[in-house]
């Protein structure tokens, strides 16, 4: 009974969200066709969608999206490791906690894109510069989320872990990470959103890395060539990837973990 209701409400949500999306597309199309704006600057949604599908079909959009995604993935992975290390370091005592807090208050307000000139000096015109910018914008909010999670672990969980013989890394892996999993997941989600934004921004300023440019570079280039439909098709790509990752990837992880365990905070 309960399960049935649950799946029914998920079904309803999907239909409602789909309806909202379709309405927005329709509205866009109507405004474009009304002739209020110059169609060169405000192309019809149908034109954008057509260009999007053509460029997906010939593989070009997929190719440049993969370039951006691979940068984001590398940046996220590095950030995840560093943020976890910093969070656990902060748990090791008052001094380290203060240290991580000071680092956070110095670097968190610093926009990643402001660091691009420094990154270019340090790492040159390479992938490493963009990854550096991504990692910078991801690590600090991630640390805040992870640290909140680690602090919220019930002491009794740790004590049971120690009682059954867990120590050090085994205790971290076996008890602390799962116990903090709601905050770790939300940290990764925030990190993903931050990484996406900073990657596009960095690519736009930085340009192509080697021969291949990502979505950000493509947006910049299409604007330069006055290919406004192409610009919008690229923006649409960013939205589609965002929805797919959020609704499919993160939702399915949450359904299998924290929602299944009723550990939602």
């Amino acid at each position, binding site marked *: 009974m309960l399960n049935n209701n649950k799946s029914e409400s998920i079904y309803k949500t999907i239909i409602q969200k789909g309806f909202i999306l379709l309405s927005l597309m329709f509205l866009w199309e109507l405004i474009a066709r009304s002739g209020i704006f110059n169609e060169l600057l405000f192309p019809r949604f149908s034109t954008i969608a057509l260009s999007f599908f053509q460029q997906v079909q010939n593989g070009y959009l997929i190719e440049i999206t993969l370039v951006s995604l691979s940068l984001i993935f590398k940046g996220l992975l590095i950030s995840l490791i560093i943020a976890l290390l910093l969070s656990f370091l902060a748990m090791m005592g008052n001094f380290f906690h203060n240290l991580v807090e000071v680092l956070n208050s110095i670097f968190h307000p610093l926009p990643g894109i402001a660091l691009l000139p420094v990154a270019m000096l340090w790492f040159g015109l390479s992938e490493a510069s963009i990854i550096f910018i991504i990692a910078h914008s991801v690590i600090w909010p991630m640390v805040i989320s992870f640290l909140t999670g680690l602090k919220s672990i*019930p002491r*009794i*969980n740790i*004590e*049971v872990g*120690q*009682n*059954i*013989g*867990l120590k050090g890394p*085994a205790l971290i892996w*076996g*008890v602390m990470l*799962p*116990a903090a*999993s709601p905050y770790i997941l939300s940290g990764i989600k925030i990190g993903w959103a931050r990484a996406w934004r900073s990657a596009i921004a960095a690519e736009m300023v930085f340009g192509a890395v080697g021969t291949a440019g990502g979505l950000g570079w493509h947006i910049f280039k299409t604007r330069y060539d006055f290919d406004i439909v192409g610009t919008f098709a690229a923006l649409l790509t960013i939205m589609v990837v965002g929805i797919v990752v959020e609704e499919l990837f993160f939702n399915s992880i949450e359904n299998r*973990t924290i929602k*299944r*365990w*009723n*550990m939602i905070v």
Partner: protein
Amino acid sequence: MLYIDNVGKSFINNGISVNVLSNITFRVLSGEFFCLLGPSGSGKTTLLRCIGGYEKVTSGTIKLNNHTVSAPGIDRIMVFQGFDQLFAWKTVSGNIEYPLKVNGISRVERRERTEKYLSLVGLHNYANYYPFQLSGGMKQRTAIARALALEPPLLLMDEPFGNLDAITRHTLQRELLRIKDETNTTVLFVTHDIDEAITLGDRILIFSRQGTVKSQIENNLNRPRIPSMPGYASLWANIYETLGEG
């Protein structure tokens, strides 16, 4: 088996040292059901936490089978009062099996022991439930099964039934006695409930509010112990008198 020798414990609070326990001496024999009874704030939980290895004693020694206790270990498994002692991310059987896995017990034996202790606490139909789907009583049964599955020489229980309703509490007391008979484990049980101490304990150590031992009482009543049986009322009165104003 367990030697508590002249144990004292004090905390520093705002620069002032506060004695929580002083001159605690007793021994628990193998196979015994030993109760620590006292009012809230008498330090019995602190003592249990020292025996569990979670806190250090200020003076005196705690020895289990001739080894001085200094850190938590699988020779003393603790069952806590809180319902959140189970791992929320593991099922009932996962909670029981995981400690066995951590301690290098083979897959086959893990399965066997999990089955055995699940049945022992009457939860074999709930093996795949997650903790949030269980009632308070079922959570405590799972915690007991998890502790027993490691087959520790000593089971430490810190008011494990304190958060349960009276009916569930009585059921679990009876079941704990049955399980203790079947497994022949040694139990050190903290409670502030006189009836619980009488129902369960072979011996009862009575604490004062100042964290000292007031008296140690032998409980030779036949089991099952019910309030209407001869001797129960006088034992109850005796303990009540001893506790006094605390």
